[in-house]
């Protein structure tokens, strides 16, 4: 345990806005602008998490960003985070090499309600980088497959080159345990798979919509169309969950940045049931 954490523990306090130091123990370039970091805590205390939770990653002098956890919840001793380089902090995170240090706070937020899917068909509907926060669901589901009626991963990417975790997707597709459908918005050579939007895959699911629970993650507009497609297919909105995104800054309900209407997303979300957002999604600049 580091000095500050030890001092805080003595005071019976919590770390609040103070990060814990971690070390980069592995990096993997996923896409041109996407890197996965594997991190180990210097204090040896594993960062246990629920699928759907996020952390705040901190680099001194640069800043802090929220990143969802994309590792295996059953193996928390390594913190796995997939990061797209879009700003100063994420760009610096993507450039980290093994041995480098990074500050971590969390995990924060409410994760996916996995218990809601027990005994049912679990549908994971992901778009683009939305596969990163949903990968722990798939990992969990494969480890708990006997408790589910079925596991269906519907994934949409911009182009064949932008498909995240392709090796893992192929592995899952090859297994009997999961029904994997991947589609791309824009075709290119060497792609013999589906071309079209991910929400169009919904009507092809081979079971009664009343038996399914859907977990949807991707850009907000993609989630909006996906919820519509699921409802059009016959699923009740109460069985659909989304992971919403706003400016997560403190992660603990103190800073007010992540509001989406009535929700403080870091505290009440990021995962919410569809009926909680149906009146909010699509409201101008909310």
């Amino acid at each position, binding site marked *: 345990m580091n000095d500050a954490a030890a001092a805080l523990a003595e005071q019976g306090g919590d770390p*609040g806005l*103070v990060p814990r130091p971690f070390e980069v123990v592995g990096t993997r370039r996923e896409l041109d602008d996407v890197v996965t970091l594997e991190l180990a805590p210097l204090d040896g205390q594993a960062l246990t998490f629920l699928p759907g939770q996020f952390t705040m990653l901190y680099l001194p002098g640069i800043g802090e960003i929220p990143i969802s956890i994309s590792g295996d919840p059953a193996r928390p001793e390594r913190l796995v985070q997939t990061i797209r380089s879009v700003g100063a902090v994420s760009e610096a995170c993507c450039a980290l090499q093994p041995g480098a240090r990074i*500050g971590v706070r969390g995990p924060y937020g409410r994760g996916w309600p996995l218990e809601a899917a027990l005994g049912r068909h679990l549908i994971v509907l992901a778009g683009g980088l939305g596969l990163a926060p949903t990968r722990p669901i798939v990992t969990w589901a494969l480890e708990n497959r006997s408790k589910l009626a079925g596991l269906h991963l519907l994934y949409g990417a911009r182009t064949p080159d932008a498909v995240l975790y392709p090796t893992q997707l192929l592995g899952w597709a090859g297994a009997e345990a999961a029904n994997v459908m991947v589609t791309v918005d824009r075709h290119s050579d060497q792609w013999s798979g589906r071309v079209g939007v991910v929400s169009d895959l919904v009507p092809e699911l081979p079971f009664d919509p009343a038996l399914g629970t859907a977990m949807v993650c991707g850009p907000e507009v993609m989630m909006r169309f996906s919820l519509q497609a699921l409802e059009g297919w016959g699923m009740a909105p109460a069985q659909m969950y989304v992971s919403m995104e706003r400016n997560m800054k403190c992660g603990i309900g103190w800073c007010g940045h992540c509001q989406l209407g009535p*929700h403080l997303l870091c505290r009440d979300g990021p995962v919410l049931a569809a009926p909680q957002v149906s009146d909010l999604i699509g409201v101008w*600049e909310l």
Partner: protein
Amino acid sequence: MSDAGKIIAAAGLEQLVRLLRARGFEVWAAREQAEALSLQPIESAEDLPRGRIEAAEAGKVRLVASGRDAYFDHTLPMQGLKRLVSPPEERLFACGEDLVPHETPPAATPKAVIGARPCDLVALDTLTQVFQDGPQEDRRYRARREALFLVAVNCARPAATCFCSSMDTGPRAEAGYDLALTELYEPEAHGFLVEAGSAAGGELLEALEGEPASAADRQRALAVSEAAAAAMARAMPSDVEGLLKRAYEHPHWEAVAERCLACANCTMVCPTCFCGTVEDRSSLDGATAERWRRWDSCFTLDFSYIHGGAVRKETASRYRQWMTHKLAHWHDQFGRSGCVGCGRCIGWCPVGIDITAEAQALADALPAAKEA
């Protein structure tokens, strides 16, 4: 602890200041500064803006002579109690490249506030709920909150911008104080009814020179609050929560945005606006970095930044965010309104936007909620 309270002479205020200082408190109160009131440390009761009252209206706050030598005819300093528990900026920790954080302990000098108003006490409780009752407790906040001694003053003469009656937060303090004063300004006697609201307050009350208050004294004090409530000119429309939730995309937001400068004044003077941000300051050689926390405002463009850009680009959506959060979504998030009716945002708005008038405009423009 004398439950019934005491009557002290007007000059007894000086003894109160002395007793608080003797107990190690830095004493704070509203002081006159550039024809306005500012919450600042005081040395003596002489520093209080005696005989002064605010001439307040939308877009304007100015101190003028009240026409008598009462101590508390004025109401609110521009700042609420917020800065005493959640400072505008503070250093959280410093660290080097090893990323081992060295935390800066919170400065929590014991402070006593004389003249905390009922609305501000409710605001303080509102902030405490955010920082102490959330997913994690803010120890810095708690340390500063616990170091506060609050001497409330029940309002006698509301400013024209006040609307606490309609928010049920005043003009008489119900809780959240150590001592509560009601100024009894009468031709034959000028003094205060002093009541204790905590053990610490009770101990201080014992030490104050005065006479036990009678039922009649307490009646006189209640009459002061009733008169103040009756004098209040502004009010928030009822069911403003439901109203705003039906108005997300109403064109009226654009009408407000034509006047709003997005200057963030309203959020800075608001006693419950708690939004903050954290930023890095690094040494010139880059070897060490400091994390600083400071107030932020939902009126800034950066506030809603997510990768790729800000969600709330227009002033209309930022004003809507502030007002709906304050009056509607606060109920969902914390089970109460985020507005205490202090009216600071009305007076300190450079263009005079009046939150009660904007709520009324929406109420007039929207059909009433359908009966369920």
